[in-house]
């Protein structure tokens, strides 16, 4: 039984089908990935699964219940927590406070509990602080706990966003291009963190452009192109799929392909590569149709 089941989901923007009749299942306990050229509809798909967008048709099931078009905070409460392609930290809060604020779903107190500072409310605050310390050390940021998030270098901001997402106690963690903008050392560290997340019994679904990263980590890959699913399977199956090679190579200089496999950096001309995302999280030249449609 799949943890996440996406069934014939379609989302159009004007005349363009950003996600077109896509179906797939995500098995628990492993890393899965969604790949595809820029504009393939990957982030739109994430927005649909996490409730930031509603599909025009199709259903999404998670952990035995229908979550189609539910509000994002309700989907998060069910156990799907996402990160963002453009890092969305709480810039004025310290790293510790960011993760603490992420512990919202672990508690339950309202205004009166806060005013009376009941034993339960006190315990929740203590537990949130404790969880924040744990999670910061889990991603290797324990030494940066008191630094404002905005003052952290970009690679650490990415890790902090992962730690904060874990604070919401997800069953399924959605990572939107977690390695974008990271150097080789940081990328390797991130891979270790993701393996450790699996080790904690949390399922990971990620969008990624760094093919080496994906092929190394993911057990299951879904390939999108122009909103449609063109392939699905193990890294080997996907890399040898004619449809995938066509999508990545069609009309693009073959210099993008290296002996080891498909290198995304060479394919999406001017797309999101290490240089395409700067420290402020501004993606250059992303061709995703309305990638963050909910941001006004």
């Amino acid at each position, binding site marked *: 039984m799949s943890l996440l089941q996406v069934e014939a989901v379609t989302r159009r923007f004007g005349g363009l089908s950003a996600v077109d009749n896509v179906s797939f299942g995500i098995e628990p306990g492993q890393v899965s990935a969604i790949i595809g050229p820029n504009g393939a509809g990957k982030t739109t798909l994430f927005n649909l699964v*996490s409730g*930031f967008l509603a599909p025009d048709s199709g259903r999404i099931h998670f952990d035995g219940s229908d979550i189609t078009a539910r*509000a*994002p*905070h309700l989907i*998060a*409460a069910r156990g799907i*927590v*996402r*990160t*963002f392609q453009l890092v*969305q*930290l*709480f*810039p*004025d*809060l*310290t790293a510790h*406070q*960011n993760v*603490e*604020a*992420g*512990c*919202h*779903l672990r*508690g*339950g*107190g*309202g*205004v009166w*509990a*806060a*005013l009376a*500072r009941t034993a339960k*409310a006190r315990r*929740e*605050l203590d537990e*949130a602080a404790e969880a924040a310390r744990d999670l910061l050390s889990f991603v290797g940021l324990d030494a940066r706990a008191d630094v*404002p998030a905005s003052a952290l270098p970009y690679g650490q901001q990415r890790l902090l*966003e992962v730690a*904060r*997402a874990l*604070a*919401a106690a997800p069953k399924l963690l959605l990572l939107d291009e977690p390695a974008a903008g990271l150097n080789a050392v940081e990328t390797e560290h991130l891979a270790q963190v993701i393996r450790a997340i699996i080790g904690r019994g949390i399922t990971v679904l990620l969008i990624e452009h760094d093919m080496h990263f994906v092929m190394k980590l993911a057990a299951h890959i879904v390939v999108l192109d122009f909103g449609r699913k063109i392939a699905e399977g193990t890294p080997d199956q996907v890399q040898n799929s004619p449809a995938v090679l066509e999508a990545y190579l069609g009309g693009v200089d073959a210099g993008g392909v290296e002996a080891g496999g498909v290198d995304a950096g060479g394919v999406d001309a001017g797309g999101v590569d290490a240089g395409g995302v700067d420290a402020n999280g501004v993606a250059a030249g992303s061709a995703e149709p309305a990638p*963050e449609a*909910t*941001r*006004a």
Partner: protein
Amino acid sequence: MAGFKLSGIAATLCWLAGAVLVGYAFVSGGYLVTVLGFAALYAIFVTGLNFFMGYTGQVSFGQNAFAAIGGYTSAVLTTAFKWPVFAAMPLGIAAAALLALLIGYPTLRLRGHYLAMATLALGMIVQEIAVQWDSVTMGYTGIAAIPPLGAFGWELPHERAQLAALLAALALAVWISSRLKHSRIGHALAAIAGSEDAARALGIDVARYKLIAFVIAAVYAALAGSLFAHTVGFVSPEVFGLHMVVLGFTMLYVGGIGSVYGPLIGALIISLLPETFRSFKDYQDLAYGAALIVILIYAPKGLSSLATLWRARRAAAVKREGA
């Protein structure tokens, strides 16, 4: 926003200075009591504003509407209908809370300057009602002879006792602000201030928490408005005009937006500044304006952040010398 708070010696000195000032007012009486009472009223108003603008990172230009509802409800009920003060005040506050709920539900979906425009309109509409609804509000003339604070036929005897009551109300207001800031709710509000999308993704019901902050801010504003009516004994549309919003904003930013004690410091400084510059005569407004600019240049996060700022500078200097 980050917990910039006064700490250590600086904080102690500030509290001491405040205590001396209040103590002196109680001994000397007179005009200083009036100024401090005014500062306390505004400190309550701005502490409420801080929930919505500081903790939650939203904008409202319409908080004067809720102050007007608190003030006018108190004024009308205690004069025309001869209600006791202790019954009129809660009703005014409840009315403001209800209006905030009704107005906030649809408008809090708006972001940034759209929300600012909607709240600005709210303030103007309520003020216009105060002007036009002559039979109840007496229009521009206003309502005078509002009874002072008191209960069961007993009234607070003089201005010093009134000041003591205002300070007690302020202490309670600040205590609640501090409690809520350092709670699960305060964390959720800080998350919304940081990034609404991230807050949603982490399971925070953004619309609900914005509404909570808006209603709390309205309750504070109504309390301040009602206390004003019973302290000054007079309300008119001008009292709750746009001037109140501008003054509230100035206090919030000068004191330190997002900090628990910022509104307190801001309200006190902004109430005292014009008096300080009284000897400048014709140049009083000029000196006042210049002082504000200097404060906001050297303490951009408000006076309450000065201690933190100073420590950070010193740490940086020590680091440079060590290198």
